[in-house]
C-alpha cells in the first residue's frame, strides 16, 4: 500500500505542477462566475440558472481534465521512459495502475472542491447570504466526482495500449455515448426486433451509463436526490471501476516497454 500511495502522491504532484490544470480551473471558475450575469437576465430564477451552469461547467471541465490529464500522465511516463526506473523496482504493474488512478482521482477531487467552493460562493453572493444551500447540491457534486472517476478509469484502459490521440478520442466518444446510454436501450425496445434488442441490451450493459449520474436539472429545481439513486450509482461505479482497472492492469501487465 505504501508503494501505491507513493505513486499516487507523485501523480498528484505532477498534475498540480502542470499549468494546463490551472488554466482549466480558471476557465471553470470563470464559467461559474459568469452564471451571475446569466442569472441577472433570468428574472426570479437566478439560483436555478447559477446551479445549472455551475454544475454543468464542473461536469464538462472535470471530464476534460479527467480525459486529458489522465491520458497525458500515463503516456508521458511511457514516452519519456520515466517508467523504466519505477517498474524495475519491486513494484507490480497493478500497483502502478492503482497508484496512478488514486493520484488522478485525488487531483480531480481537489479540483472539484475548488470549483464547488466557487459555486457556493456565487450562490451566497446571489442570495446575499440569506438563502440556504441545499445538501442535494453536494450530492450532485459527489455524483460528478464518481462520473469523473469512471472517465479516468476508461482513459487508463485506453492509454494502457493505445496512442494518446486515439485514447482521448475513444474516451471522449464513450463519455458522450454514456450520456445517452438509456436511449440505446429504448431504441432496442422500440425496434421490435429480437436481434436488435439483444444487441442494444448488451451495449447498454457494456457501455458506461452516465445518465444516472446527471442530476443537475433536478437539483437546480430544488428537487431532492433519492438515496436509492445515490446507492445505485455508488455500487455501479465501484463495480465498473473494478472491471476497468482490472482490464488496465492486465493489458498494461502484458505490455513491452520499448
Amino acid at each position, binding site marked *: 500500500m505504501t*508503494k501505491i500511495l507513493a505513486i499516487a502522491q507523485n501523480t498528484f504532484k505532477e498534475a498540480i505542477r502542470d499549468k494546463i490544470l490551472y488554466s482549466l480551473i480558471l476557465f471553470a471558475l470563470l464559467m461559474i462566475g459568469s452564471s451571475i450575469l446569466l442569472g441577472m437576465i433570468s428574472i426570479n430564477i437566478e439560483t436555478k440558472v447559477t446551479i445549472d451552469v455551475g454544475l454543468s461547467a464542473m461536469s464538462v471541465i472535470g471530464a476534460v481534465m479527467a480525459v486529458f490529464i489522465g491520458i497525458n500522465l500515463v503516456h508521458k511516463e511511457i514516452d519519456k521512459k520515466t517508467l523504466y526506473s519505477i517498474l524495475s523496482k*519491486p513494484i507490480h504493474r497493478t500497483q502502478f495502475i492503482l497508484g496512478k488512478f488514486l493520484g488522478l482521482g485525488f487531483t480531480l477531487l481537489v479540483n472539484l472542491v475548488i470549483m464547488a467552493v466557487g459555486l457556493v460562493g456565487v450562490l451566497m453572493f446571489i442570495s446575499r447570504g440569506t438563502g440556504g444551500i441545499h445538501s442535494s447540491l453536494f450530492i450532485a457534486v459527489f455524483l460528478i466526482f464518481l462520473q469523473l472517476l469512471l472517465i479516468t478509469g476508461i482513459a487508463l484502459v485506453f492509454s494502457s495500449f493505445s496512442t494518446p490521440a486515439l485514447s482521448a478520442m475513444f474516451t471522449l466518444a464513450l463519455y458522450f455515448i454514456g450520456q445517452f446510454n438509456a436511449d440505446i436501450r429504448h431504441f432496442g425496445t422500440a425496434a421490435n426486433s429480437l436481434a436488435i434488442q439483444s444487441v442494444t441490451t448488451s451495449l447498454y450493459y457494456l457501455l458506461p451509463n452516465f445518465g444516472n449520474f446527471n442530476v443537475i436539472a433536478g437539483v437546480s429545481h430544488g428537487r431532492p436526490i433519492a438515496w436509492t439513486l445515490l446507492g445505485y450509482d455508488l455500487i455501479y461505479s465501484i463495480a465498473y471501476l473494478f472491471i476497468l482497472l482490472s482490464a488496465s492492469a492486465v493489458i498494461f501487465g502484458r505490455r513491452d516497454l520499448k
Partner: protein
Amino acid sequence: MIAIQIENLTKDYPVGFWRKRQVRALDGLNLTVEAGETFGFLGPNGAGKTTTLKLLMRLIHPTSGHAEILGRSFTDVSVHQQLGYLPENPFFYDYLTAEEFLNYSARLFDLPAQSIPSKVTALLDVVGLPAARRLQLRKFSKGMLQRIGIAQALINDPEVVFLDEPMSGLDPIGRREIRELILELRRQGKTVFFSSHILPDVEALCDRVAILYAGKLLGCGRLDELVPQETGSMELMVGHFNETLRNELQAIGKEISMAGNLLRVTLADQGALFRAVEAVHRRGAHVIRILPGKESFEDYFVKLFAPPGGSARAKPL
C-alpha cells in the same frame, strides 16, 4: 555463488504496421555472473545489450528462456528489492527536485521513513550532487541526470547493480568519478553488471566481459582470455638520435615513424629489440620507452565488429 544466471534468453519484436514480422533482438543468450564480479556487457549499437537489461528488469517480456538473479526468478518482484538499475539515457520526472526524486525512489523500496533523509544526503554526496539537492531535474545537465540515475539505483543498497551505459554523457571527470564509484561497489562486494561502449573503462573495471553481436553471444570470459595479450612485437621509443642511427634502426625494425621528436620503431621480436637497443647505446642516443606490442581491446573490438558488409543490428527472422 552465482548472482545472475541467464538461460537461453530470447526476445523477438514485432515490426511493421500491417504485416507484422518478427525481428530477433536477442538470440538464446546464456550467461553466468558470479557474485561480487564486475561484469562488462559489450557490443555495438543494436547488439541486444539494452534488451537483455530490460528483460532482466521486467520492462519487456521474453519470447523464451529464463533468468535467475540471486537464486530467484527474475520475474519474482521480491528479488528486485535487492537490485539497482540505471536505464540507458535516463529520463526522470523533471518537475521533481533531486531530493524529492530520491525520496520517491526510496519509498518504492518500502524503506523505513526515518532512514530515507540520511540515505538521500549520503547518496547525493557520493554522486557529487550535494548542491543540487533542491534543484528541479528539468534544470539538470545530461551528466547530472546520469549521476542522479546512479543515486536512485543505489538507494536500496542493492546486492546487484545493473548499469546501462553508465558513462554515457559524462565528461572525463564525471567518467572518472563513476569509475571510482564502480570500483567502490566492487570493494563492497557488490555484483556490478554494466554495458558500455567505452572500452578503456571496461578494460579498467571488469573482471570478465561478454561480447554480444546481432543478438548473439560471441564470447564471454576474462579480458586476457578473449583478447590476445601479446603479439610478439615490441615498440621502442628513441630520443636524441641522428640520421645514421635512424638508417640503422630502419634496417632492424619492421616499421619506423616519428612521434613528436622521438623515433618510434616497431620490432618483430626480442632478437630485433636487443640489436636495436645495442645500436642506440652505441650511437649515444637514449632509450625512452619499450612497450610490449599488446593488441588493445579496442583494436580487438574493431576487428571483431568490422566484418565486410556486416551489421550488428538485429536480423529479421
